[in-house]
């Protein structure tokens, strides 16, 4: 009886592990055995299609297929494959028999967060979970070996394991993970602390440029993104929020559209938006476009790019700024310097423009809310959905879809998930899929914050930098999304990359007198993280200004930087690697010029060399870019190169074209005709140099983007003799 009960319990637990959230089981991080199979019926049933859960990270099927659980979101950055490589490496399974399964947040909460964090941002997917996923793989391997040792009654030390096969050389016996899994699952897992992880030098699967696991369905149209979901009886919604951020819905005239084909109803979406719900999305959108809507635009309707620029400009010289770093006396040192250099830079608001527009499908009943959504933060999706539905966390379920682009847009805010639930709530029991038009997506982003930066430097007679003063004025992401961290304007995050502390986004230069200040100047425009976040703007300000200072000192760009980097060997090593591969100082074809930049962000060190030319008509061409990266451990060099290439494209789009302007309180650039994106013909040849030092774990998705714009702008400076201080380049005459 006891046995039967236990088997039944484990079966129900299995059910929710694979996705259906059932109430259940408290298990501690990483190594709990759900005691799945106790005997008889349990074993027979649990070993069918689903396989045996050896521990939270590893499920083994009878044919030795290892299903590796993935808690982080896949949005193109390759984290799914990288995490699977790390687990498989320790597990010693057959890579050809690896499958993956994404963890849903309800199950994670029910199992006391056995899978750790599901949030995927800040380039933390791998570095933030590598330790516990590797231990999970290693623990499963140790249990497989133990199970074989017990079965054969031989010491575990006499066994070897490779490709999911355990062997005992002395007796000539061998068996597979598929045959050992159910016995292994019954064993007491090893103490995680006792597990010795492999030295990366021994890696056979991790550290190798192996192919992604998730490519096949992206080649034939079979991959189901959230926007592609079909559910029986589903309705479709198109939404419009107040074009002026913060505005309210005053009224709308439903009668004008209620007779249009397929239209079910027009619904209010909280205070600030209206949606048409129809039997197809195109019909919903067509009716929405025809719907007369009156907005109460509120006070922000008088704002424009010009008023915002004025406010930021005031912040460049205002008193009361937050001094993030104040070492020595920078103002005095610059004042008394033999030579002074001064410049004011600026960068605009930018939208993310993921290729898959925001969308979410929701189904709400009296006691349950389900959402199907592409999310970088499944926990935030669950919280948003349940809160909007007025239900408890345990009454929510999030079905995760891989993202058609994230870049920071699909993180904690989950505004589109809230909207979908607010709409679906008005159609109880009916799934409603909300899709934003591209125009809505451009109008209602959480934009990369706008800023201006005034920099001043002092050089002594020998051309040595004696003082640096940086005054940043601009909008704070924390003030919008996490106000306590921006209290009083003391927002460290906006100074990302200028930090003194090592490890994450440390300034790589040593300057005897240094003052780094931030004047918080917020606007009504929502802001949020955008691939690379503040390293983008600060990378331009720091590295373009350092270039101006180097030129004023009459020094070579590389040598001037090197002289400031003696105390920062990792920054320097990466700069040197980029310079070497980028042939710094070597001759170039006529008309081609080089620029260089370095920066640290997301725990990794980056540097770039760009080669550009400017035609007689003022057309800029970026021919080649070399990017060097030290991300500590390189889990999949080919996917790191893919991320570096991607960061160049994303960074160059911003450099050339990216700009969201504001008129009458609303965003002006609403589609790709006036928010152009880099195209293939403009893509330079990118060479990636990975400089792994294997003594830390850094990020990959974001770090290199911050050196793309400054390397290109510095090359442009070399080409024209004039520094560009305001982005994007589409507004700058180059000839």
């Amino acid at each position: 009886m006891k046995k039967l009960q236990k088997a039944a319990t484990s079966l129900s637990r299995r059910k929710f592990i694979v996705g259906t959230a059932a109430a259940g089981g408290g298990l501690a991080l990483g190594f709990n055995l759900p005691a799945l199979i106790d005997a008889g019926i349990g074993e027979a049933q649990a070993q069918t299609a689903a396989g045996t859960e050896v521990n939270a990270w590893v499920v083994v099927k009878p044919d030795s297929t290892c299903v590796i659980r993935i808690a982080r979101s896949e949005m193109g950055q390759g984290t799914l494959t990288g995490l699977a490589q790390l687990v498989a490496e320790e597990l010693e399974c057959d890579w050809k028999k690896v499958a993956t399964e994404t963890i849903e947040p309800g199950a994670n909460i029910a199992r006391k967060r056995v899978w750790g964090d599901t949030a995927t941002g800040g380039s933390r997917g791998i570095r933030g979970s590598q330790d516990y996923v590797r231990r999970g793989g290693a623990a499963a391997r140790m249990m497989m070996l133990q199970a074989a040792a017990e079965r054969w009654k031989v010491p575990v030390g006499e066994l070897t394991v490779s490709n999911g096969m355990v062997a005992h050389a002395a007796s000539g016996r061998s068996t597979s993970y598929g045959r050992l899994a159910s016995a292994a699952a019954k064993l007491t897992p090893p103490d995680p602390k006792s597990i010795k992880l492999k030295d990366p030098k021994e890696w056979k699967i991790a550290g190798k440029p192996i192919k992604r696991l998730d490519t096949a369905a992206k080649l034939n149209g079979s991959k189901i993104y959230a926007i592609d979901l079909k559910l029986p009886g589903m309705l479709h919604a198109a939404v419009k929020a107040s074009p002026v951020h913060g505005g309210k819905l005053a009224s709308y005239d439903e009668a004008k559209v209620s007779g249009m084909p397929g239209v079910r109803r027009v619904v209010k979406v909280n205070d600030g938006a209206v949606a048409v719900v129809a039997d197809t999305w195109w019909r919903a959108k067509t009716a929405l476009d025809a719907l007369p809507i009156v907005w109460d635009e509120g006070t922000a309707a008088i704002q424009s790019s010009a008023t915002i620029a004025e406010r930021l400009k005031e912040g460049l010289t205002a008193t009361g700024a937050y001094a993030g770093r104040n070492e020595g006396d920078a103002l005095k040192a610059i004042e008394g310097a033999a030579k002074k250099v001064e410049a004011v830079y600026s960068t605009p608001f930018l939208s993310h423009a993921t290729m898959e527009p925001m969308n979410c499908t929701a189904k709400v009943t009296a006691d349950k809310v389900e959402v199907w959504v592409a999310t970088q933060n499944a926990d935030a999706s669950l919280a948003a959905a349940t809160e909007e539905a007025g239900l408890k966390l345990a009454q929510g379920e999030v079905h995760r879809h891989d993202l058609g682009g994230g870049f920071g847009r699909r993180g904690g805010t989950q505004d589109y998930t809230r909207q979908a639930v607010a709409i679906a709530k008005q159609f109880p029991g009916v799934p409603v899929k909300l899709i934003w038009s591209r125009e809505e997506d451009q109008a209602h982003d959480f934009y990369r914050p706008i800023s201006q930066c005034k920099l001043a430097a002092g050089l002594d007679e020998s051309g040595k930098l004696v003082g640096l003063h940086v005054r940043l004025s601009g909008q704070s992401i924390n003030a919008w999304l996490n106000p306590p961290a921006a209290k009083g304007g003391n927002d460290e995050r906006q100074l990302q990359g200028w930090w003194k502390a090592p490890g994450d986004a440390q300034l790589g230069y040593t300057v005897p007198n240094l003052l780094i200040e931030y004047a918080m100047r917020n606007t009504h425009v929502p802001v949020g993280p955008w691939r690379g976040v503040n390293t983008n703007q600060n990378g331009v300000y720091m590295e373009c200004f350092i270039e101006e200072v180097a030129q004023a000192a009459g020094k070579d760009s590389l040598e001037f930087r090197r002289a400031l980097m003696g105390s920062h060997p990792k920054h320097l090593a990466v700069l040197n690697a980029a310079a070497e591969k980028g042939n710094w100082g070597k001759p170039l074809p006529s008309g081609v010029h080089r620029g260089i930049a370095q920066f640290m962000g997301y725990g990794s060190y980056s540097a770039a060399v760009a080669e550009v030319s400017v035609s007689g008509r003022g057309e800029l061409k970026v021919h080649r870019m070399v990017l060097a990266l030290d991300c500590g451990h390189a889990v999949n060099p080919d996917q790191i190169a893919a991320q570096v290439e991607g960061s160049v494209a994303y960074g160059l789009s911003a450099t050339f074209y990216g700009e969201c302007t504001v008129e009458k309180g609303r965003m002006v650039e609403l589609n790709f005709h006036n928010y152009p994106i880099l195209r293939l013909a403009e893509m330079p040849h990118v060479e990636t140099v990975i400089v792994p030092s294997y003594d830390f774990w850094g990020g990959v998705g974001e770090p290199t983007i911050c050196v793309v714009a400054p390397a290109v702008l510095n090359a442009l400076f070399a080409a024209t003799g004039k520094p560009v201080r305001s982005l994007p380049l589409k507004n700058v005459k180059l000839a």
Partner: protein
Amino acid sequence: MAKLNINGKVRDVEVEAGTPLLWVIREQVGLTGTKYGCGVAQCGACSVHINGEVKRSCSIPISEIKPADRIVTIEGLSADSSHPVQRAWAALDVPQCGYCQSGQIMAATALLKKKPKPTDADIDEAMTNICRCGTYQRIREAVHHAAGLAKRKAQA
């Protein structure tokens, strides 16, 4: 009512005349490999072949499609992802998020049909679809690679 030949199969669809082909493909026919990205023929995520030419289906009203027009979507490119372009995309691990790749592949197959051995300039001119992940460098390599695969196939 419109008669559509999609991937070799003729279907009747009941839809307003102004409905873009993209949304007919996605919502009436139910093939979702063809993507919505911009709705204004800027990004190319909705690219399909009509009589062998690559077209941006988001901006073609269904009323402009004739019953004789042969429409091919990503799902109809090959039965088993064996088209040289699909194989080349796999060989070079082109996709990141993958959302734009149906359109990229449709653009590349149309290019190779016209120019079996395209130059970089040909690729620059033909491959104008937007990819936000920035897979352009691999797309270029994969188009060249696919040209090689197709040539080998032809010689075999």
